[in-house]
């Protein structure tokens, strides 16, 4: 009997859950297990990790038997790679800039410009206008209206 993956979506989902479960069990090995009567900090996470591995195996295993109901599958061409990566990066950059005390204004400008780059067609003039307006609005609302104590620029204290 040849095994073929009939439902790649479920198959990879199963793999992911097995991996997450294994990670949980692995991390929990440092925590004291205890017994059912005296549950240690490791008891609950270890069990959950085990259960998750079980679900993962079941989901992944069924992928060999049951056709996918949706025809969509897991085609990588349906992934929105650009917004997915760009938006995550823009937020991460915002976080790092705020953390580095570079100031509210530059961080927001970067975040908004970054967001605009996530869209298929970038209108530069519109983007810059939007970034300036939204930043000004945010500063007015959050810094002056709500008195949030974040420095506006890296030189302001």
């Amino acid at each position, binding site marked *: 009997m040849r095994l073929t993956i009939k439902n790649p979506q479920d198959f990879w989902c199963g793999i992911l859950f097995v991996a997450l479960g294994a990670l949980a069990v692995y991390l929990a090995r440092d925590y004291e297990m205890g*017994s059912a009567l005296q549950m240690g900090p490791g008891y609950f996470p270890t069990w959950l990790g085990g259960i998750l591995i079980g679900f993962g195996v079941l989901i992944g295993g069924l992928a060999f038997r049951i056709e996918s109901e949706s025809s969509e599958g897991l085609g990588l061409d349906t992934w929105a790679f650009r917004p997915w990566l760009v*938006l*995550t990066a823009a937020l991460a950059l915002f*976080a790092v800039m705020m953390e580095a005390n570079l100031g509210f204004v530059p961080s927001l400008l970067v975040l908004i410009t970054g967001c605009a780059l996530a869209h298929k067609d970038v209108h530069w003039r519109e983007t810059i206008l939007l970034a300036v307006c939204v930043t000004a609005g945010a500063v007015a609302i959050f810094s002056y209206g709500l008195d949030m104590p974040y420095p506006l620029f890296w030189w302001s204290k």
Partner: protein
Amino acid sequence: MEQLLQNLVLGFSVALTLQNLAYCFLGVFLGTMIGVLPGIGPLATMAMLLPLTYTLPPISALIMLAGIYYGSDYGGSTTAILVNLPGEGSSVVTLLDGHPMARQGRAGPALAMAAIGSFFAGCVGTLIIALVGPPLANVALKFGSPEYFSLMVMALVCASVVGTGSLLKSLAMVVVGLLLGIVGTDVTSGKARFTFGVPELNDGVGIAVVAMGVFGLTEIVKNLGSAQITPTILQGKITGLMPRWEDLKICFGPMLRGSSIGAVFGPLPGLGGTISAFTSYMAEKKLAKDPSRFGKGAIEGVAGPETANNACPQTTFVPMLTLGVPGSASMALMLGAMIIHGITPGPQVMTARPDLFWGLIASMWIGNLMLLMLNLPLIGIWVKLLQVPYRMLFPIIMTLMGIGIYSLNSSGTDVLLMAFFGFIGYVLVKLGCSFPPLILAMVLGPLLEENLRRSMLLSDGDPSVFFTRPISCGFMVATGLLLLLFAVPALRRKRSEVIKDD
């Protein structure tokens, strides 16, 4: 009866203070505003606005959050009627007849009927909470740890069973959520678990961080990735807002039936607005003299489901407030907010903080009244908002998300975490997983572990305790039956056919 009256008077005296009225208004207004935006459902709206409530006093925070919840729900219906674009879940039903009505130039009555239906449901819902709450809390006071454990297991299974997508994946997502709930310092042993040495994680992962990641960021990525739908926004002015007298007369029955359906489905864990709205729609279609009118702009097809859908949010508060066990992801967010404000959820809330309990209930009625009065005059603004192109809208939403999360602890780590959850969230969406079970499980995780631990102490480590105590056994049997019912694939297929049929 006298007790009930006294309680309601207490509630209104709390809810009617100027401050609480203002926060209620703010919640309803902001909730509707964000909820109107296509593709942003009540959960995403709540997650986005949750940080705003953190600095308020507990009662005002909860009142505002509740306002955001039913405001965004109503906002979704507005979008469904005006734009042929279903927002989330339940507004799909409103769309069926609401949009045809709008096409026929009857957008005004459709929107008004939705608002009147919401208010009607709000009144019924408030009464039901006031009536059912106290006796239920009394029963719940007798619950021990095993009962709580079983109840939570039932809530989690219910949420997975009725959710969209595969049952197995939803159950797995519950487990992932429980694991996420573990992150942080263990209350009993003081041991830091799953923190990867990051000190910010010692207090656990914030519910707002995860919710904003998977409902906010992931949702935006999904919207940007999907083929651009050009929404058919209604052109021209909306006139004749008020429904005719005969419209009201036709709709009285559907509203009455709708609120009963919603009130029954609301408190059941996992069942929500969508299912009640569908049930109501099908009921009205069956009862109608001329069913062929449905789908072509029958006003009953708006009033019934909309009422059912809005009776739900009210009554979903019942298990959350009286038992301390939320039945849906939105209620999990409410519960999370309560915990943040130092209120231990559970049946004791009603006796220990009657001002909070009854104030919240009274505020829901007031909030619904505000919705009714607010939304009709403000419809012009919502239409304008819908005309803003998405490519200008989402950077603003992202900005609000970024600032909101950063302001929680003035910490960039939280923002990084949100970005991470949004990133992973998109992968999970692509793998066909849904998030409401995860959020619910994340909030319930610590409670579940604590009650398991106590139950085990109680029973000398014998797991049969969950089946030997009658109430707990009842919950467990119900859970088993549900799983059995939905694990049979044939049955499951039939269910989706039934829904598709309509």
